[in-house]
């Protein structure tokens, strides 16, 4: 907490405390519809945080993060369906496999100096062909999809992640808060400074003796592992997984859009972005419902996102940060 608040004004502390309290109390304050929206908001905030660690901190663009989420989701779901392995155990397999996939991509990319857009293409390729492979594996449900047994239980079963939306809400809230704390700690660590140096100027970082390969591999490993955990939650919340929608590039884009809008490289960007984009989508749905033309909603939603990116290219958070004067002037910029 102290690290997150470093450089923050008293006003920012009050705001953060208020936001935390509101989120904790939300299930008692809002109806089930709003809660379902909040759940999705927090999921995007969480995965956005994981993705941000790679691009925003370490400067490595991934456009295939659906791969890590998907691997986590499929691994834990398949183990649950076939062996009744509870998700708290399945999450270890999920993280291990996601980190393995991230490490393979990272190794190929960083050893053979595949940079920038080409590295991003590599991540897309891995996500796409994993999706195609999964569609051909019957054990994983094939192209027909993998379904988790849904049973109505009287009580929330946290160990098996079976239960009410309120339970899923608190799980994803905990994950999001945990990811925020972890990222904040990492950003202020020696490793975080190395990452920022690489992000700013890889050549200069190397000249100073920053071990490029090791630092970038660690970033990919942490980012993919966190995403894998998100995947476990995703599988058990939605109860169904389809290869194309899970591993597809459009899913990857969906996962990172909130962070792009909120502010890449900032700690609160992914959270703010998710809080803006998901409700915006809901409002668009409500507004365009009566028109009855297919594609009106994504059109206006896309327009709104384009406007945000056009007018606030470094994201909403840095702008809001200055607008509300959240800093106390000791730190360079918004965090």
């Amino acid at each position, binding site marked *: 907490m102290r690290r997150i608040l470093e450089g923050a004004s008293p006003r920012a502390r009050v705001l953060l405390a208020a936001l935390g309290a509101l989120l904790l109390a939300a299930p008692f304050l809002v109806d089930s519809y709003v809660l379902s929206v909040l759940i999705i908001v927090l999921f995007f905030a969480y995965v956005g945080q994981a993705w941000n660690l790679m691009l925003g901190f370490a400067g490595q663009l991934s456009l295939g993060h659906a791969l890590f989420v998907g691997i986590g989701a499929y691994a834990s779901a398949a183990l649950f369906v076939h062996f009744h392995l509870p998700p708290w155990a399945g999450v270890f397999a999920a993280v291990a496999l996601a980190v393995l996939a991230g490490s393979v991509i990272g190794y190929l990319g960083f050893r053979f100096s595949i940079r920038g857009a080409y590295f991003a293409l590599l991540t897309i390729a891995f996500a796409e062909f994993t999706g195609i492979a999964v569609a051909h594996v019957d054990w994983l449900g094939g192209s027909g999809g993998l379904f988790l047994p849904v049973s109505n239980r009287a009580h929330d079963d946290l160990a098996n992640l079976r239960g009410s939306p309120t339970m899923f809400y608190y799980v994803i809230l905990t994950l999001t808060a945990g990811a925020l704390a972890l990222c904040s700690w990492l950003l202020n660590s*020696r490793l975080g400074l190395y990452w*920022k140096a690489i992000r700013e100027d890889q050549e*200069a970082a190397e000249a*100073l003796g920053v071990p490029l390969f090791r630092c970038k591999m660690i970033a990919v490993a942490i980012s993919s592992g966190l995403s894998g955990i998100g995947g476990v939650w995703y599988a058990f919340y939605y109860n169904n997984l389809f290869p194309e929608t899970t591993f597809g590039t459009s899913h990857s884009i969906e996962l990172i859009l909130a962070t792009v809008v909120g502010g890449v490289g900032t700690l609160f960007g992914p959270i703010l972005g998710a809080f803006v984009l998901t409700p915006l989508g809901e409002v668009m749905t409500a507004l365009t419902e009566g028109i009855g033309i297919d594609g009106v909603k994504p059109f206006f939603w896309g327009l709104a996102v384009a406007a945000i990116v056009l007018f606030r290219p470094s994201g909403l958070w840095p702008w809001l940060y200055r607008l509300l004067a959240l800093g106390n002037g000791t730190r360079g910029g918004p965090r």
Partner: protein
Amino acid sequence: MLEVSDLDVFYGDAQALDGVSLRVDEGEIVAVVGANGAGKSTLIRTIAGMHRPRRGSIRFRGTEIAGWPSHRVCDLGIGQVAEGRQIFPSLTVAENLETGAMLPRARASRRSSLERVYHLFPRLRERAAQPAGTLSGGEQQMLAIGRCLMGAPELVMFDEPSLGLAPAIVQSMLAIIRQLNREGLTCVLVEQNVAVSLKLAGHAYVLENGRVTLSGRGEELLRDDRVREAYLGL
């Protein structure tokens, strides 16, 4: 202190350095001069571990370091101030300096190094909380030098420290290098500004198309007809 012998470096099939040998003694300033594309930056980058030589040896205090990764070379005490300053623009001045002192050899002396840098460049202390991208060109060069000094180096390779700076600032930059040298820092100075660097240097090497074509004491080279004709336009 540093002995480079018979160094061959290639970029793909193109040879950038061809049998380059050079020697730097403790406490010296050695200048490497030559035209654009002669291989000066390649030489620095290869010594720093950012390029792997195809052939040849690089010995620092008797240890063979050719082919070592840059972080191990830095940790031995070889620093470099890269061409074009290469500061981290959105990090603050203080954070930039911190990135220079991350390796084991530098971490212990971080505080005293920082004091030394701030003493050397009081302007950096004033601007410590400012993003480095907002500094002027001269201040950025100070920052680049300061960041390198944070690593507690014993030998620093300066790649074109006067590039793109106003003449008055070039003079103060060179004065700083001279002062650091008097305080015990061994320097390798790579410059296109031949007259200035030869005046400053004990020994100097002239690099042409990846080969050392001339070497000797700085003042001698300044009087050499070939140097005067090719680099000084006299």
